[in-house]
């Protein structure tokens, strides 16, 4: 009798190639037939076929069911049920979709005016680039010269199957050479289309029914799937048509020996590639070193080509109908994907604008990076180690390059997830050894596997639990799986010979768990000694602080362990009894609850009283608002997502410890999290601009050759210094003011000014031009010395306004203007204007 599992379709982007291929993998392990039924649309799909699943055109929220029938149906039902609850909802990675194309933003001043050829589209991957155009034509696969050769139906079927096998082999080879990540995943999705039993079945059926050639049958099948997907209501599914066409084109190329479409494309010099649309495999085939940008007339931001462009940080603008016909071969193009536009044959002044724009952005990036590599230390010299959370050697390498001072949490679950066979000691050793080498002496905390709870592992066959977060997970599993934990600890110990590794156990709630693990480590060390293997006998052993009980036995635990790391996510939800994934109570989940802040204080002080080291590795660590609290606590380290390191370090380096201590004491006395957050925001604002002017926004030599350029340069100086976050809006506000009447005040001085929401920090910027420019009308009022005053729209408090009013009054006096004009350096200007 058939078994049925009803469920609601959970994935935001519908049933697309990636989750479908994982579904196929899991369903394929059972002998029973597994049919996927979409009760909303009535579509039925073979659960062991990616294509058939994708073609079911299922969207989030659709009522669905699996119907399972066959000899192992009970086992299959349990397995599929587990898959559907535990793994499938996580199969859909969030699509990072750049800003939706809402109302087109107004262009910066330099891009207005006549005779500019600007095409606006949708940004699929940000950035700015300029290069000559290379036009890529995508040929629809068609018959080879001389028409489709045709054999008997059996011959043709055999040819198709052989071509599929070849294509699979070549895709596998490319997957092996492709680095892990998006490219790898996309090849995998294509491989699953090529391996799809429904696809091959459908081709064979067409061949036998229509007595046509293999090529025609392939095209016919692709067309049918394409139609189904194109008719779907989901943009994401419509964009998958390209994937199927891509695979079909490759199979036809292989069958008839015609070269792959992508092989025609040669980009040997820097170029902006322009095409009607571009198949992912064509994109992969391009020499990416020379692809400065991508411009497409069709295709959305979720196509695999767009995803690849983002993965490789190549600017990409799509959705400009007909652009592949408008652009001439080798035409000079500027692609400004940040503003979602392309400029054809830009005139010189636009070129100058973008030269400056690119230079500014490069500077801003460099300053963030320079910043990122400074040590984590407060402005008054208190050390706070800023480490990274990571899960692979690649991430560890990138984290150190991005300013991490250690790895505060190396998660090992990923080594276990999504694998048919669990990793053995050698595989793990290779990873940990690589990590230790990457770290070159800097500390790395490796956490033993935390499986169960929100990270189930199908191969361990842990029965589904009512309440997995309070259940069988992490260290609680180790006794049942000695082989797994032994292999992991042996791998960590051996790798400890190569670097500064520490080992940390998750989900510890009592002393005996720690003792059991320490005993195990000693036994494993004995074995390694006997084998003559090298390891660090003094490897520090620590535990996660996630379960509140730990806070009350710190004295006992400090006798057994060397260090602690607070897992703030789990600790928050266990302490406040809030499941953050439960929408009804998620608003109660916050690490800024005064009770939680007091708990942290108790834990950190408790550990330090016993002379031990303590860090924190939850999401709270990556919140720049919380950084002053950590200095207040005096915690030894925080470990965060690598991308957040520059911002958090920036805050830490601005803070003073006595201020942080006072802030912490005051927020612990507050009555609700909202009050805490407001206090933290106020503190953050006070760290930013207290100074109206610094030497960084005074420039005494400029080649700006017009009023337009000079004003833009001043606004850009403020943007680069983090004082303006929307330079185009601020530029507009300044010009609006100029149009009321120009701000030239005679004597070669002008004081453009504005109040705008694009201003984050009230500022006074100064620019002295090498040659004067006309301010009002030609031949009138040449200006050489500019003082730009920008006020935030939300500016409260009159302190800055008073200073500016005072400055305005002083500018009326000639002696003062003369002092400014004669100033020898930016320092003198700052002194003159500041007081």
């Amino acid at each position, binding site marked *: 009798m058939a078994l049925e599992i009803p469920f609601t379709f959970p994935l935001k982007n519908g049933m697309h190639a990636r989750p479908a291929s994982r579904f196929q993998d899991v369903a394929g392990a059972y002998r029973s037939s597994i049919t996927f039924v979409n009760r909303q649309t009535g579509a039925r799909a073979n659960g062991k076929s990616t294509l058939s699943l994708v073609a079911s055109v299922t969207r989030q929220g659709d009522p669905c069911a699996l119907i399972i029938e066959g000899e192992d149906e009970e086992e299959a039902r349990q397995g599929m049920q587990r898959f559907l609850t535990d793994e499938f909802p996580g199969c859909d990675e969030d699509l990072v979709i750049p800003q939706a194309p809402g109302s087109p933003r107004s262009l910066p001043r330099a891009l207005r005016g006549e005779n500019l050829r600007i095409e606006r589209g949708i940004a699929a991957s940000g950035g700015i680039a300029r290069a000559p155009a290379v036009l890529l034509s995508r040929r629809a696969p068609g018959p080879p010269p001389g028409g489709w050769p045709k054999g008997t139906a059996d011959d043709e079927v055999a040819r198709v199957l052989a071509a599929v096998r070849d294509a699979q082999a070549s895709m596998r080879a490319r997957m092996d050479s492709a680095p892990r990540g998006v490219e790898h995943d996309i090849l995998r999705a294509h491989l699953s289309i090529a391996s799809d039993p429904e696809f091959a079945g459908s081709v064979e059926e067409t061949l036998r029914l229509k007595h046509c050639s293999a090529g025609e049958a392939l095209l016919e099948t692709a067309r049918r799937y394409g139609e189904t997907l194109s008719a779907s209501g989901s943009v994401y599914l419509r964009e998958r048509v390209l994937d199927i066409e891509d695979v079909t084109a490759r199979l036809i190329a292989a069958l008839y020996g015609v070269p792959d479409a992508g092989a025609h494309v040669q980009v040997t010099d820097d170029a902006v590639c322009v095409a009607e649309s571009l198949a992912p495999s064509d994109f992969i085939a391009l020499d990416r070193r020379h692809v400065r940008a991508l411009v497409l007339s069709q295709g959305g931001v979720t196509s695999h080509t767009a995803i690849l462009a983002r993965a490789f940080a190549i600017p990409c603008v799509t959705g400009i109908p007909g652009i592949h016909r408008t652009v001439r071969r080798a035409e000079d193009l500027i692609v400004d994907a940040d503003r979602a536009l392309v400029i054809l044959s830009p005139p010189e002044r636009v070129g100058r604008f973008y030269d400056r724009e690119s230079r500014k952005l490069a500077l801003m990036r460099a300053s963030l990076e320079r910043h990122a590599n400074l040590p984590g230390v407060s402005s008054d010299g208190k050390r706070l180690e800023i480490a990274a959370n990571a899960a692979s050697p690649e991430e560890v390498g990138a984290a150190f390059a991005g300013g991490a001072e250690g790895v505060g949490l190396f998660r090992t679950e990923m080594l276990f997830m999504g694998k048919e066979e669990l990793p053995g000691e050698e595989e793990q050793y290779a990873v940990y050894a690589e990590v230790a080498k990457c770290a070159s002496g800097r500390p790395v905390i490796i956490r033993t596997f935390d499986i169960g709870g929100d990270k189930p592992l199908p191969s361990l066959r842990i029965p589904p639990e009512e309440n997995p977060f309070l259940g069988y997970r992490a260290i609680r599993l180790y006794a049942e799986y000695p082989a797994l934990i032994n292999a992991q600890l042996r791998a960590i110990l051996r790798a400890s010979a190569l670097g500064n590794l520490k080992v940390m156990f998750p989900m510890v709630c009592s002393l005996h768990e720690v003792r059991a693990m320490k005993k195990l480590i000693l036994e494993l060390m004995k074995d390694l000694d006997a084998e003559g293997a090298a390891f660090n006998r003094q490897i520090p052993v620590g535990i996660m602080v996630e379960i509140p009980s730990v806070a009350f036995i710190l004295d006992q635990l400090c006798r057994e362990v060397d260090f602690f790391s607070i897992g703030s996510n789990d600790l928050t939800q266990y302490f406040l009894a809030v499941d953050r994934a439960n929408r009804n109570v998620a608003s109660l989940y916050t690490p800024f609850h005064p009770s939680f802040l007091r708990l942290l204080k108790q834990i950190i002080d408790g550990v330090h009283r016993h002379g031990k080291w303590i860090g924190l590795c939850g999401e709270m660590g990556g919140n720049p608002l919380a950084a002053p609290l950590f200095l207040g606590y005096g915690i030894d380290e925080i470990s965060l997502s690598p991308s957040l390191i520059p911002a958090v370090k920036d805050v830490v380096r601005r803070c003073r410890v006595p201020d942080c201590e006072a802030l912490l004491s005051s927020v612990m006395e507050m009555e609700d999290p909202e009050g805490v957050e407001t206090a933290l925001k106020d503190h953050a604002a006070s760290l930013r601009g207290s100074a109206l002017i610094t030497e960084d926004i005074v420039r005494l030599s400029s080649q700006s050759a017009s009023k337009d350029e000079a004003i833009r340069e001043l606004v850009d100086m403020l943007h680069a210094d983090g004082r303006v976050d929307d330079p185009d809006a601020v530029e507009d506000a300044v010009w609006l003011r100029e149009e009321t*009447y120009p701000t030239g005040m005679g004597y070669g001085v002008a004081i453009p000014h504005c109040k705008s929401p694009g201003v984050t920090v009230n500022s006074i910027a100064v620019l002295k031009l090498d040659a004067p420019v006309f301010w009002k009308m030609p031949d009138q009022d040449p200006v050489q010395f500019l003082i730009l005053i920008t006020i935030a729209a939300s500016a409260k408090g009159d302190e800055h306004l008073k200073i500016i009013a005072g400055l305005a*009054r002083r500018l009326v006096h000639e002696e003062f203007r003369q002092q400014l004009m004669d100033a020898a350096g930016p320092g003198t200007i700052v002194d003159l204007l500041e007081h």
Partner: protein
Amino acid sequence: MVGNESEKGDAMKLVAVTACPTGIAHTYMAAEQLEKTAKKHGHAIKVETQGSMGIENELTQEEIDGADLAIFAVGIPVRNIERFAKIRVLEMPVQDAIKNPESIFAKLG
């Protein structure tokens, strides 16, 4: 203290209002310029600024009524203008007060 109006060049008692669209700079520059130039010519002046910090150095009805002349150096309408119903007003764009204050005082005679 009231100057003798009949004699050209004699000290006068003046009140003024300065205001500009953003209220950030020109309001204050004009105020400074008027104060500076009035002083040079020996006139007494009190300048009310209507700028980004609101109304400052506010003129009382008494002060206005006791003055010989009011100067408006403004780019936007003057607030509380009813106070000036009974006094002669000399009005000009705010930038004129900044650039050519002398020409204002030349007219006073």
